[in-house]
């Protein structure tokens, strides 16, 4: 690795500090607002008496749906992540290991890539019509299905990179040792791609947790997720800045915790195959 000295080192650290500031500053600003009363926020005060009012209001007020929204988000993100991991891992294993005709495997992967490039907003219209027909509109199941569809391509690509890294001989050895193919997958390949499962799981969970556009259009007040709930603090005649900031900060906690534990695997997963 290149070791920086003198002015280069100073410039590098300055740039790094600037980059961190750009990322962290908005978050800190929102965190600051969450401890202010509405009036202090509107006045733009820098010196203010801190309060937990916004948090208490968001979490315990009888008129607040936020705990329900939080629960909805947990259900949607968890169930969609589990489903995405199961389907994505099996699909990736199949594409990586089974002898599909090349055009089938390539075609499938190209389709997932193209699907990943389509803006989710263009899918909302068809989904709205389909879900309304089959009774999934404004249900958690509908949103879970939509999130599975959105997150599947990325999961398949990531898991394929992990499976491709495992030498085929290891599975061959397991099959000679007495495994059926399914045993070789379960006992040998799956434990070896565990870091990939963690990385793909963290990313799928965070994407689902933060997803706004689809959730806004396909959920009702009872099934809204956290990002939708945060947006709803801005009403036509009143914007509850304090509550909005408090809800935003609360909503980052699960994702932050997951990223804290999973970031090592996420970085490894996203760069898999990039360097040997």
């Amino acid at each position: 690795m290149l070791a920086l000295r003198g002015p280069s080192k100073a410039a590098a650290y300055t740039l790094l500090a600037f980059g961190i500031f750009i990322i962290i500053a908005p978050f800190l600003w929102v965190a600051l607002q969450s401890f202010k009363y509405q009036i202090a926020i509107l006045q733009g005060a820098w010196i203010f008496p801190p309060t937990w009012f916004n948090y208490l209001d968001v979490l315990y007020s009888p008129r607040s749906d936020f705990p329900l929204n939080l629960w909805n988000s947990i259900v949607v993100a968890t169930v969609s992540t589990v489903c995405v991991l199961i389907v994505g891992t099996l699909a990736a294993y199949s594409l990586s290991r089974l002898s599909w005709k090349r055009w089938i495997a390539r075609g499938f992967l190209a389709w997932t890539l193209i699907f990943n490039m389509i803006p989710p907003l263009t899918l909302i219209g068809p989904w709205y019509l389909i879900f309304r027909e089959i009774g999934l509109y404004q249900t958690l199941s509908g949103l879970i299905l939509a999130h599975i569809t959105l997150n599947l391509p990325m999961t398949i690509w990531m898991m394929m990179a992990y499976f491709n890294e495992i030498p085929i001989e290891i599975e061959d050895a397991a099959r000679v040792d007495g495994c059926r193919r399914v045993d070789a997958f379960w006992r040998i390949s799956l434990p070896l791609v565990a870091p990939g499962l963690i990385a793909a799981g963290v990313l799928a969970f965070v994407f689902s947790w933060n997803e706004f556009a689809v959730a806004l259009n396909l959920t009702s007040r009872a099934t809204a997720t956290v990002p939708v709930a945060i947006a709803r603090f801005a009403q036509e005649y009143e914007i509850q800045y304090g509550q909005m900031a408090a809800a935003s900060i609360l909503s980052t906690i699960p994702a932050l915790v997951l990223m804290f534990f999973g970031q090592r695997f996420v970085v490894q997963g996203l760069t898999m195959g990039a360097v040997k």
Partner: protein
Amino acid sequence: MAEVQLENVHKRFGGVEVIHDIDLTIDNGEFVVLVGPSGCGKSTLLRMIAGLEAISEGSISIGGRIVNDLEPRERDIAMVFQSYALYPHMNVAKNMGFSMALRKEQPGRIRQVVEGAATSLELMPYLDRLPRALSGGQRQRVAMGRAIVRRPKVFLFDEPLSNLDAQLRVQMRTEVRKLHQRLEATSVYVTHDQVEAMTMADRIVVLDKGRIAQAGSPLELYDRPANRFVAEFIGSPAINVFPGEVDSGRLFLPSEEGRIDIGPVSAHEKKVDMGVRPEDLRPVDSGGIPGTVQVIENLGAETYVILSVAGRDVCWRIAGRPDVSVGDRVRLGFDLSHAHFFNAASGARI
């Protein structure tokens, strides 16, 4: 132990045939080495015996039972891979005992068998280590231990020593051979290294472009190669091949001094290739084939002298130290009964 029988075995990948009509019987307890250059189909053939590759045509039987449609786990075989193929998330003991654990044998019994194999392979101190904490040689021994613990009818080895350094390779060669003598199991060993084949095999099967070029004991192949391909492949340094012409029942070779009369040959062909092993060459005062010394390779106990003869390199093997120097003109003779003659067009032995 079991006999392995291959009958009219073919393998096609799409429209490309890579194994052509192989017929081969490997006897009970025999150590057979499949050898050939890269891409000759030897590993594919081994994988077909293992059940890791489907057979396009023909049949393979192990112990009298046709195994064409059986899964690898049902064939009662063990395989040692070139890349070792150890399970990275299991320690040495679990790697070695994996097949027994799959058969749901008692943990005490597994431990006993694993420790027995580990003792014979000097792996006892490493039983709790993960494969990544082992050296290449130790990993190779674990792979062999795993095969031993499986107690199979047939051992399959797919270039197991290729990833080891030269010294360790020689050592492991002996280990594999000792293992075979102790277990007396039928073994099929694939390698591209003819020295490995010569030193380890009861019988060598030389493959060329998916066909058996010759099968026989190492010395049979060395002394009476069935064709030019086998003659050139078996032996290190390789046999010297001189292209010649037959005229009135006598073989003539081109040289810098014009055509040299080598002697009578019983060949009907006009163009004949003559093969002479490097150790069969000897210096002569007159006659023989003239050449100029280009390179001298000293190995201590023996020396390889590379000469230029009519524009082509010829290797002369000397026991001990040479009394020639680079640039010397030397005349090389040989006993005609030690020479091999091949049809120049087909390569078949005459």
